[in-house]
Structure formats: C-alpha cells, structure tokens
C-alpha cells in the first residue's frame, strides 16, 4: 500500500530536503515505520524513546487528525495522503 506523506519544512533537513515521500504500509503506524527506515535521523524528532509519537507531532490522514481516528492503527488505502503538521511559532 503506497501513500504519500507530506513533510513539514522544519523536518525536511532530516528527510534529505524532500517535501513529500512515498511510504509503504497498511496502517499509519506501518507507514511511519517505513518513513523512519528510509530516514533514520527523522526518528528522534517524531518518536520518543518509548517509540511513541511525540505529542507535538500532529499527523493527519487527509483532513482528519489520526488521534481522532484509530491513531497508529488507522488503516490506509492506496493513494491516501498523510501530512505531518509542524509546530511553528514565528511571527
């Protein structure tokens, strides 16, 4: 199952500068694992030591926050679009 994952600007340096990557997985969790396998330096920015998604990382499937779906167990369909929403504070 291939989905696209949009990487926010602050995290792009850890994804070789890419803004969108293709990830494999049947669930959100699997797709994230694929992401950090492709870009290991991204892992500590997204996950805690206990391998949980860090609270400041917002992940959306389409326009819905996965926290309000089934979290990392949320199933994915071919062509789905995942987006990491960054915490930014500039003004």
């Amino acid at each position, binding site marked *: 199952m291939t989905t696209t994952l949009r990487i926010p*600007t*602050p995290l792009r340096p850890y994804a070789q500068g890419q803004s969108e990557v293709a990830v494999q997985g049947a669930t959100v969790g699997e797709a994230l694992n694929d992401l950090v396998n492709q870009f290991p330096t991204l892992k500590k920015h997204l996950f805690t030591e206990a391998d949980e998604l860090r609270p400041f990382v*917002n992940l959306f499937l389409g*326009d819905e*926050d996965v*926290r309000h779906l089934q979290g990392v167990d949320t199933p994915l369909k071919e062509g789905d679009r995942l987006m990491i*929403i*960054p915490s930014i504070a*500039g*003004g």
Partner: protein
Amino acid sequence: MELTHEEILRYSRHLLIPEVGLEGQKKLKAASVLVIGTGGLGSPVALYLAAAGIGHIGLVDYDVVDYSNLQRQIIHGMSTLDDLKVESARQRMLDVNPDIQVDVYNEIFTSENAFRIAEPYDIIIDGTDNFPTRYLSNDLAVLTGKPNIYGSIFRFDGQVSVFDGKEGPCYRCIFPEPPPPGLVPSCAEGGVLGILPGTIGTLQATEALKLILGIGEPLIGKLLLYNALDMSFDFVKLRKNPDCKVCGPNPEVTELIDYEEFCGVPAHDHESGSAGADWDITATQLAERLKHGDDLKIIDVREPHELAISRIKGAELIPLGQLASRMSELDSAQEIVLMCKAGTRSARALEVLHSAGFRKIKNLRGGINAWAREVDPSLPIY
C-alpha cells in the same frame, strides 16, 4: 452609536457591501481587539484593522524597531528606527485612521500582566513569535472566554486558525506540547520570506472582521496550512481534545503561568548569544589567542549558505543539525570554539558537546556578528 458624515465617506466601500452595511460598520467601530506583537504578523493585522475602522485596538510589544525588521514589519519604517515598536505602530495606524483609539502596552506579555492588559478587549490576535507566549495567550483566551486568532510562520509556511475555547478546540488541544528547543528556529536564526507574515497576518485580520461582523465561516475547528512555494492552501479539521488541560471539562490550568520552562526557551531576548560567562569567549579575546598562535579549532555551526555572507578564515563548518552525528570528527583534547551568526546556535552546540563529555569548549559570544563589530569590520553584519 452613529457614524459621522466623514466616517460614512471613509467607509463607503464597506457600506456598499450588503453583508457589512451601516450596521456592520457600527459593529466594527464598537469592537475592541488586542494585537499581541507588532512584528511580522502584527504589522498587517494592525494596519488593516485600523483601516477597517475597529474602534479600539490594543498593541503589546516590549521591543524597539530594528533595521532588520524593515524587511517584513511593514508598519515600521526608517523614520521610527530605534523607537518603541508600539509607538511606531500606533503612529502609522493613526495616520491611516485618526478616528480610532489605539492603546499601547510597552511591556513583556507575562502571566503577571496578561489579564490586566486583555481586560478591555473582546478578541485576541496572536502575533507573537515564540512558543511560551503562544501558550500564555491561549490560556488567557480560554480563561477569559475570548476568541484567539492564531497565526504562525516559518520560512515559507504559515498557519491560521481561530481558537475559540467555548465553541471549538484551543491551541493546546492541537499542540499539547511544544517541540524541543532548537528544532524550530526563530525567524532571526532560520530566516523568513518577508512577505509571508504579510499573507498570514492579513488572513488573521480577515478572521477578526468576520467574527465581529458575524459573517462567513470563521476558521473555528479548522487549521489553514499555507505554503508560499507551492501556493497551496490546505485545510485540516481540528477537534477539541476531551482531555485538554486548558479547555477540557477537567482543566489543570486554572490560572496563568509563564511557559519558558515548559518550552525550554526564553519568551524574549532569545538573541542573548551567550552560553554563560564561564563558557563564552569574546571576539576580541579569540582574535588575541589566534594571533598568539594558540592551538584551537573554530567550528562554525551555521548553515552552508551563510558562509557567503561572512566567514572566519580557518573555521570548519559543521551545521548545528549535523553536530550530534559528526562529533567523532572532533578531538575533545583540543580546544574548540563554537561560533554561529549571533551566538545563540553556538550556545546550543556547546550544550550538545558538553553533554557528550567535551570540556575544552567555548562559545563565541555574539557570534560572527560580534567578530565583525570588534575584530574585522570588513565583514557585514546580518
């Protein structure tokens, strides 16, 4: 309240719109809005709200107008360089519209003064530039039941939403915790396309007008994600977090607190450029030691594209984001001086090395900008 003949002429283009009309313009005149921050976002917000005829606008900012602000903070200008930003902004707003009331608060916005400052206003607009003040503004908005019009920027990305804790989620529902310090640089460190806060601030002002006039669909429960490079406008749904510590049914935050420790960064003066007296070396001291022939290594932790602006001969580049993985290239027995633009990133680099056991390390206080000021004036300051 009635509008004068002058006001009717001034706002005629508003009065001609059925959704605004005379009644709408009176609502704008009766409204009161607090703009926290008169920088990149605050500039277009304050200008457009003044133009629109918001009767009472408050401005909060502790800072003065700096030369490098003028690239994007369009409410200020050469004529108000070094003036208090709130005074500079107020002057410009009253030039656009002398009929409105502009109150200024030249103070750092903290838990001590936030309630007092916000009291006369119905709507809060978050034009701040740091996480601690954003969390504070959100708490204030939820605790006082006022909508908080959120906007934030980073390089080419912007976000806008309306956090109305009564009707929808608050800032904390979406961002329960800030990112670790250093992951998201400030505009001073990471840069920002000058025009970006113009777009985002104008969108924030738009939401303010919609709320006051009661028209259109405000961004309550929605987050607008803007990217200037793609010219993309994405919308995602935001929902209240049932366990939100601020706006949930069992709130833990019932009074205002300051968030510096929570966020790990200061809310202001983030350009101190110092790692503390024991760990700093001044540019003058470094120059003397180099002249003396001392064996020390200068590690430049800036980004590659900054080298074109100014550089110190002999310095080796290891961008801050790569330092942790490239520490093995460094000899902990050798004295290392860390440097960046202004001393802030290099102070963080020092902490990274210190945690890894390095002790013969120093931070170039004030960065290469201080070097340009004290040692080599042929270099530009940026």
